[in-house]
């Protein structure tokens, strides 16, 4: 098997995640889809790392995880406070930017 398949898998997962972000309204699920996209990227990084034979790809994936963790913490906090004020976790309800 060609390890390129990992990249195809990563691309597939990324696309699924992105589509999910677009069609789900529950902010939490949207968030999960974002995580899915990040994980897909990580997979690609790891595969590239193997391809190039050095560890920089893994380092990047590591950083991605850290940043994702920070992002999740803040993001979830935002969702919680949003829910408190609006009694809803729908991303469509936060549409004050509408003209």
């Amino acid at each position, binding site marked *: 098997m060609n390890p390129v398949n990992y990249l195809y898998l990563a691309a597939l997962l990324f696309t699924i995640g*992105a589509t999910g*972000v*677009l069609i789900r*309204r529950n902010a939490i699920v949207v968030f999960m889809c974002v995580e899915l996209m990040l994980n897909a990227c990580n997979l690609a990084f790891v595969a590239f790392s193997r391809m190039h034979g050095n560890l920089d790809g893994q380092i990047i994936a590591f950083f991605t995880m850290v940043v994702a963790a920070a992002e999740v913490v803040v993001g979830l906090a935002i969702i919680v406070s949003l829910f408190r004020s609006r009694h809803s976790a729908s*991303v469509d309800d*936060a*549409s004050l930017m*509408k*003209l």
Partner: protein
Amino acid sequence: MENLIALLVAAPLLGAAVLLCGGRRLDRVGHLLGTLLAAASFVIGVVLFADMLGKNADDRTFTQHLFSWIPVEGFQADVSFQLDQLSMTFVLLITGVGSLIHIYSIGYMEHDERRRRFFGYLNLFLAAMLLLVLADNYLLLYVGWEGVGLASYLLIGFWQHKPSAATAAKKAFLVNRVGDMGLSIAVMLMFTTFGTFAFGPVLKSAEEHLGGGATLTGIALMLLLAACGKSAQVPLQSWLGDAMEGPTPVSALIHAATMVTAGVYLIVRSGAVFNASPDAQLVVVVVGAVTLLFGAIVGCAKDDIKKALAGSTMSQIGYMVLAAGLGPIGYVFAIMHLVTHGFFKAGLFLGAGSVMHGMNDEVDMRKYGALRKYMPVTFVTFGLGYLAIIGFPGLSGFFSKDKIIEAAFAKGGTEGWILGSVALLGAAITAYYMTRVMIMTFFGEKRWQPDGEGHEPHPHESPKSMTIPMIVLAVGSVFAGGFFSIGDRFLHWLEPVTEHSHGNAPISATTVTAATMVVLVVGAGLAYLQYGRRPVPVVAPRGSLLTRAARRDLLQDDFNHVVLVRGGEHLTRSLVYVDHTLVDGVVNGTAASVGGLSGRLRKLQNGYARSYAVSMFGGAALIVAATLLMRAV
């Protein structure tokens, strides 16, 4: 001595500047100052004249270069003067008659609170007119040309509170501008053809038939257009009648004696150009002949004394233009008639002014009558002017007009016969309408009545300041022609400038004179039968079709009104509409459609984060696609 030429112009110019800028402080002495400066200019003119007489005939051209006016690569316009016999004649006429009319105006305008300004304008006119005749190139002439137009505008509209005066002034300026357009095109043509527009080289080149016949014809026709505007020749004659709205001294000076003859000056001055183009000369004589009859017919029908005289002026200038169009046979006679006409027509106008002065500014001749008893001096001077204009033997008009008629016959061929007959017919009509004016004004029963407020006019003789100029002019009207003609003095004087040739007349001079006498008697007799034998009705009878048309200036104004004024109004109105709706509309339409489009696009901004995410995602996809495509290519 030559350096005095600039002073000729400078003196009245100074007067104009001082009087117009001086303010009310000068109100009490303004008229005297103005008259003094006009007289000073006359004195300088006389001094120069004396100097000129002292020289040989070939040596009589004085020049004075003042400064370089517009120096541009390949284009040189100078302020420099040229005083030759032709200019000298004009200088003396302008300053002489001008000074007299200044004096006359002191009395005539005595009760006008804006008398100072009136004298300022008169001085401005003198300066411009002198510039016109003294210029040594066409561009400087153009300055004077428009300058007299401006002075005429200001003076016609002097009583600005009268809407009719303001309108007449505007009309005069506008019609003149059409003529000016011709002059400027002529100058441009000269420049592109000869690279210069100074009299000397241009006329010399024309004499040698350089530059091609068509171009010279073009220049000549454009000059003729200019002359038509200034000299009220058909088809640009319509302003002169209205110009009578101005004070009478103005009518006498500008619209009879001097300014309106500038066209004749222009044609005679540019004689070489016209000589080189027989086609243009033909047009000139046709214009002259048509105007001659046109003015005369209009003059027969007018009841307004000044307008009748205006028609007469038009007709007399028609004579001059006719003569000028005949070429070297006629130039001298055109100028001679111009000078004598300057005397008698100015005198007639001053007389008319004197009559109006005594009649509470009434201008309708049907309300005059029997004034000879009340205004003897005016009657006599006016009468002498009358005899002069109709060509009574021995008086000025007799000599000058007779020569023109002779010259017209001398043109030769069918042309000569037609022109000569027209000139003769004109003489008959002149005798008719002038006799009519004379009879209606001074003879018969008194016809004036109290006006609406019960003021009955008390006709009285005018003050000395008015009568003396009239007397001087009357003397000129009587003797000038004889003085000029006997021994061909005038001819010899002008010949170096204008050249002269004798045509081969098909009929003898005596026959012409006899014929002139006959038509004179016929014309005057007819008028006597019509107006002298019967009382003149106070209200004008309806009259024949021709009379009614003539009263309306042969429908020229109606034509102008319908075609030019109405048409122009419609044109401008529709253009304003076009500018607003079409030109601006395209712009506003673009703005509106951009606004509409953005209104649509705004809907994309629906506030849903997911919609934005879709566009981001789509954008990312496009970028990926573009990257791949670039790599593939």
